[in-house]
């Protein structure tokens, strides 16, 4: 079934202590699944499971969004030698919650000469695209909503659909700044998608599978960035650069360059509709970072080194979910570092970087990786 909670081969046993669940969520999900099956028919079980997963993802989405906005402001302040938000709550941690309430209470300004249907649809397309992508990401062992056998391709396909929302927002606002912002964003995302795809294909060659759970499982003996050494490392760098561009973040934030275009495609949006764009940007960053963590850095697999059994045992003691979050936030920190240290590129520089540098490097890199796998020169 498509909507079944992911099936992991291990059988759950009831005698395990309660904290074991943090190392393997499959026993918990199996228990919930079987108790729902006892209570109602197959049809309603599917509906109930979809609802539970939907609510959980929604909650996670909101919390991660709030936290990332706070993290961005703190990291930005750190880079610029400031303090950042520090008034609302200890270290200002409630600042984003206050901001959220402010956005919720703001007026939704209707635009007179805008295409109101598309204008209202655009933020939803952006947010649905990121929502669909987050469903296929493996958070920990057994904590994986849909385990498609083409997981990587699905995530790339779905997360790229957000650009349609951006294009619609820019056009339907009936504003030149918005239109130029949307146009830039379109050109940028369409071209950088190639690099994202190709750099992931490099790793798919090494893994021999596109299923995210299998990709994670194949990294039990070593993360792919170490296993595939040189080409994997090049692919990781290319992925970082091109995925930063794909999420419209600085130094590639031409679509909303505030010094020239006020706010680009979301200039005309206010209140919660603006918040949707804002939230989707951060969630897209999170999705991209978790793909990088899953594909290159081993997902929820702990850091194990060859035969250092004592070291490996200590590493295995840290729950997989903590590993996953740690790696993801490491990648997110690198992306924030990019944003606050590099100057913004011009549109021609941006396209030159992609078509004249990243794409040829990537194509050669795929060949090198294929050769490496054929010769068995990887670890």
């Amino acid at each position, binding site marked *: 079934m498509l909507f079944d909670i992911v099936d992991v081969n291990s059988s759950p046993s009831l005698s395990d202590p309660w904290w074991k669940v943090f190392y393997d969520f499959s026993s918990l999900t199996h228990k919930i699944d079987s108790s729902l099956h006892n209570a109602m028919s*197959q049809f309603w079980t599917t509906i109930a499971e979809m609802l539970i997963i939907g609510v959980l993802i929604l909650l996670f989405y909101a919390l991660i969004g709030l936290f990332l906005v706070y993290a961005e402001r703190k990291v930005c302040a750190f880079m610029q030698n400031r303090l950042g938000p520090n008034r609302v709550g200890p270290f200002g941690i409630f600042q984003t919650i206050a901001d959220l309430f402010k956005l919720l209470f703001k007026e939704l300004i209707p635009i007179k000469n805008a295409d109101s249907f*598309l204008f209202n649809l655009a933020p939803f397309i952006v947010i649905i695209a990121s929502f669909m992508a987050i469903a296929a990401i493996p958070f920990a062992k057994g904590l994986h909503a849909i385990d498609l*056998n083409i997981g990587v391709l*699905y995530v790339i*396909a779905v997360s790229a659909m957000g650009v349609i929302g951006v294009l619609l927002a820019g056009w*339907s606002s*009936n504003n030149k700044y918005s239109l130029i912002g949307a146009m830039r964003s379109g050109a940028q995302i*369409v071209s950088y998608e190639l690099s994202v795809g190709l750099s992931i294909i490099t790793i798919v060659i090494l893994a021999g599978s596109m299923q995210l759970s299998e990709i994670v499982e194949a990294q039990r003996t070593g993360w792919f960035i170490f296993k595939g050494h040189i080409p994997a490392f090049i692919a990781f760098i290319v992925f970082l650069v091109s995925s930063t561009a794909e999420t419209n973040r600085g130094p590639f934030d031409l679509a909303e360059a505030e010094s020239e275009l006020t706010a680009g495609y979301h200039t005309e949006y206010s209140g919660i509709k603006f918040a949707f764009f804002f939230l989707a940007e951060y969630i897209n960053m999170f999705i991209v970072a978790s793909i990088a963590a899953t594909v290159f850095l081993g997902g929820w697999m702990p850091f194990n080194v060859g035969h250092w059994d004592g070291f490996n045992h200590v590493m295995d003691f840290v729950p997989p979910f903590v590993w996953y979050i740690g790696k993801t936030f490491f990648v997110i920190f690198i992306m924030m570092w990019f944003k606050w240290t590099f100057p913004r590129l011009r549109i021609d520089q941006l396209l030159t970087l992609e078509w004249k540098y990243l794409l040829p490097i990537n194509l050669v890199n795929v060949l090198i990786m294929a050769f490496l796998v054929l010769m068995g020169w990887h670890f």
Partner: protein
Amino acid sequence: MASNQIMFILFAAMIIVFSVLTVTSRKILRAAVYLLFVLVSTSGLYFMLNYQFLAAVQLTLYAGGIVVLIIFSILLTSHISQKFESSGWKKNVFSAIAAITGAILSIITILDYKFSATTEAAKEVDMRLIGKSLLSVDYDGYVLPFEVISVLLLATMVAAIVIAKKSGPAKTQSPTLNQE
């Protein structure tokens, strides 16, 4: 009713409604968005068939690629106030006749065909299988169509470059985006 049937009816209704809206809408960008909905629902049907690869390809190529290009070209060429005039009744009648005839023909063909249910278990179509059959020269192989399509794509790409190339010293003033 099983959940599968409910999902199928939902997707089918979405495809039909949005297809009709695509051709009847008089605002061009809205038509493109309705087309997007049609393509996304089609990929939902593929997901129901458990053919996830095709569904993801449908999403990347059609929804993420072709619709984005269509929307992009609309953004470059048309203004928001533009609205197509409704075509005359002659056109409406004849195109309706053509569409209904086509629909009736294909419905008759589908109903005539005896769909025999197989007892085989559903096959897991994974990436390895697809890759192998795409490049296989055996009876079930697809290497010839694959190569033909590759040559076709190469030809289109060369043609696009030739068209886009600046032709010699005779410079023609063409309006660009920057002059806005």
